């Protein structure tokens, strides 16, 4: 394509030429060494957004009182419930089921399928979701899913990567469950009909990710989450499991035995409330990217507004590790229309290296995500070696044309169909030119504490997926959240089913919401904030806001 014309502004052209001129030598050099443990700690403390002062505050109320969380998270926790208990008639039960599942991403879908396989009839399982069936961050996962199934790898090596990457803050039992279930998750997917990328000999095509000591990332082009989710949705529909779309839970219902016993549902379209009673409830609502922590743009789905942590907290569930937030190193920084969207880590796994405005390497390309992100921030803001975009964002180059030099022509269209297409729609051919990237808000590392059976400290409440804390410690590695969904989603479905066979529900109550109001009053919190917020607010001029203020 010699007729390709760059769609980058004129003032960037000199830098783009430098990147191209140094491409060959950058590739043939030994590159940058991975950092030592001391260097990593130092760069985190100086440049990671988690360490920036005044961006967090201790939660003022409840069982995890005193835990530091981002201000945006504290805001939705320290807020009034949307409903008043007196407005809801708990004697009028609209849905009476064994298992209620809230959220229809990878974790919720897995829970539903496993609940059915463990003996709960399809009309005794009810899934609700505030958008469409299958709409979730799960579907947006590009790069892949980890599982230690190759001969040179093992679940124990995977375990060490997970724990080290998480800064030793992970709950060991959960990390163990994650790595040991992983090969069976891949087996299960193939049995259901998920098309993973294979080598010509039929073995899994596996690549490296940041912080992995083996190549264990399985992918389906760069539509991994899409492929897995749509298979699970297809299977969910085939089995005839009950489901209500565009219906959100807004708070749990409890009973007089202090168990979670269902939820108050809100029809997003008719704006009516409904009562769902259940013996076991699975919370699988995902994370909080759409809260735009510290003003960061996000890779996340429209529905990622942190609803689950709020609802769980009001029942008295314990939270953990919410002091750390994941910023993905390579969010798109240009053009404006796609700022914050994900440029998959698989690009680096397949050979693209980050370089600064002079075309020089400045960091090992597969550091764990928090380290990699911190180094991009340092390059842009301390060393001043970034490119400034027309809207004032700073960014570094990710030299995507390197990929086909390393792995041969055709690789990008074959393995990166989504990246290629989505950048092309905005005028950039990633085979020919590098892309501008800067860290973007990606993942809620912490959340509701669970045990390996996905139980919380509140009987009847199970959690799975991003809404949980403890699996990934203070930093998740690439491909481990996609894995987490199915590992803990399946466990939730199975354990929720076992519980539903044994327990009975007592008298329904919303007294915990009155208790929550008392906590707020006792802490002197005077606010008109209400939560869960369900949808982010982008109307009018808010569409145009990017108030990122890094240092």
């Amino acid at each position, binding site marked *: 394509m010699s007729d390709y014309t760059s769609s980058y502004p004129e003032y960037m052209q000199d830098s783009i030429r430098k990147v191209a001129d140094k491409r060959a030598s950058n590739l043939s050099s030994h590159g940058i060494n991975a950092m*030592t*443990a001391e260097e990593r700690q130092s760069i985190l403390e100086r440049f990671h957004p988690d360490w920036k002062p005044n961006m967090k505050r201790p939660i003022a109320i409840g069982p995890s009182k005193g835990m530091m969380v981002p201000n945006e998270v504290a805001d939705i926790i320290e807020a009034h419930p949307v409903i008043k208990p007196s407005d809801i008639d708990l004697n009028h039960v609209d849905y009476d089921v064994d298992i209620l599942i809230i959220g229809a991403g990878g974790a919720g879908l897995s829970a539903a399928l496993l609940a059915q396989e463990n003996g709960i009839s399809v009309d005794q399982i009810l899934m609700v979701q505030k*958008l*469409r069936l*299958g*709409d979730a961050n799960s*579907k*947006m996962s*590009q790069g892949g899913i980890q599982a230690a*199934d190759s*001969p040179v790898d*093992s*679940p*124990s*090596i995977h*375990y060490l*990567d997970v*724990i*080290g990457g998480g800064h030793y803050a992970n709950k060991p039992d959960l990390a*163990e469950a994650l790595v*040991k279930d992983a*090969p069976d998750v*891949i*087996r299960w997917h*193939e049995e*259901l*009909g998920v*098309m*993973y990328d294979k080598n010509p000999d039929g*073995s*899994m095509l596996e690549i490296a990710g940041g912080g*992995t*000591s*083996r*190549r264990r990332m399985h992918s389906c*082009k760069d539509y991994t989450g*899409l*492929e897995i989710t*749509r*298979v699970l949705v297809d*299977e969910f529909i085939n089995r005839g499991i009950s489901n209500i779309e565009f219906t959100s839970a807004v708070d749990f219902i409890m009973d007089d035995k202090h168990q979670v016993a269902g939820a108050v549902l809100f029809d*997003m379209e008719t704006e009516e409330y409904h009562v769902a009673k259940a013996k076991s409830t699975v919370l699988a609502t995902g994370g909080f990217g759409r809260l735009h922590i510290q003003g960061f743009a996000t890779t996340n*789905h*429209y529905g990622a507004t942190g609803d689950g942590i709020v609802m769980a907290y009001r029942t008295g569930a314990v939270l953990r590790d919410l002091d750390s937030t994941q910023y993905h190193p390579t969010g798109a920084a240009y053009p*404006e*229309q796609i700022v914050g969207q994900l440029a998959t880590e698989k690009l680096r796994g397949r050979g693209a290296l980050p370089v600064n405005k002079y075309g020089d390497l400045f960091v090992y390309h597969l550091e764990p995500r928090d380290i990699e992100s911190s180094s991009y921030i340092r390059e842009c803001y301390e060393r001043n070696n970034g490119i400034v975009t027309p*809207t004032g964002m700073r960014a570094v180059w990710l030299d995507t044309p390197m990929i086909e030099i390393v792995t041969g022509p055709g690789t990008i269209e074959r393995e990166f*169909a*989504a990246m290629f*297409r*989505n950048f092309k729609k*905005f005028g950039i051919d990633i085979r020919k030119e590098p892309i501008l990237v800067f860290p973007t808000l990606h993942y809620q590392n912490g959340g509701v504490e669970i045990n390996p059976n996905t139980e919380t400290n509140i009987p009847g409440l199970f959690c799975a997926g991003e809404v949980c804390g403890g699996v990934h410690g203070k930093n998740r590695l690439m491909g481990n959240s996609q894995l987490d969904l199915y590992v803990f989603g399946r466990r939730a479905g199975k354990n929720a089913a076992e519980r539903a066979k044994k327990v009975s529900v007592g008298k329904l109550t919303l007294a915990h919401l009155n208790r929550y109001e008392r906590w707020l009053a006792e802490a002197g919190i005077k606010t008109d904030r209400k939560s869960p917020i369900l*949808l982010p*607010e*982008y*109307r*009018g001029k*808010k*569409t*145009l806001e990017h108030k990122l203020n890094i240092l």
Partner: protein
Amino acid sequence: MSDSNHMVTIYMMGKKQRVPADLTIMKAMEYAGHQFRRGAGCRGGFCGACATVYRKKGSYKLQGALACQKIVEDGMIIAQIPFSPQEKVTYKINDLKAEANTFLEYYPEIARCLACNTCTKACPQDIMVMDYVQAALRGDITQAAKLSFDCLGCGLCAMRCPAEIVPYNIGQLARRLESKYIEGPTEHVLKRCQEVKEGKFDADIEEMKKMDKATLSKKYNTREMKIK
């Protein structure tokens, strides 16, 4: 974003709005005061929730796009199609056979395909939709699976098909058959599952679970890297 002086006029379901020129259709609708309930999903071209049709000024053509992936143009007339009616056939995947007539058995309407290529032209992902429907008709599961792989299920092809076929359901069936029956399970995955079941890694992991942080971190920092 934006040079907010540079505005264009668009018509949302006929209603005239002035919006900044460089916004996507999705952000333009939000700028104009809409809060999506239906019609917005991942906002990044991965979910197909925001299927939209539009006509451009001076053009007779009805075109399709994802609202999150298309920049507004002056004079554009826009309607969102957040849902397309369709009935997915249900089946037990374990009872299916990867045979040439499986598609026709479950979706006999594919025989009505006129090969007009309207579906392909409607696809915002630039997928060769007609080609995969035709592959299914021939019973070529692998081809139908591969050609349909990038499908988001947005529904635009189904809304335009004069033969009233729902192509994305055909693609979904093709991919599941391809993976489960043609590619089949992966040997080294099954082997590892068996090893986990036998407890082969339990002792190693148990040891690490009990290690103090200093020992564990030494082990982590000196672990062997085999990623080349």
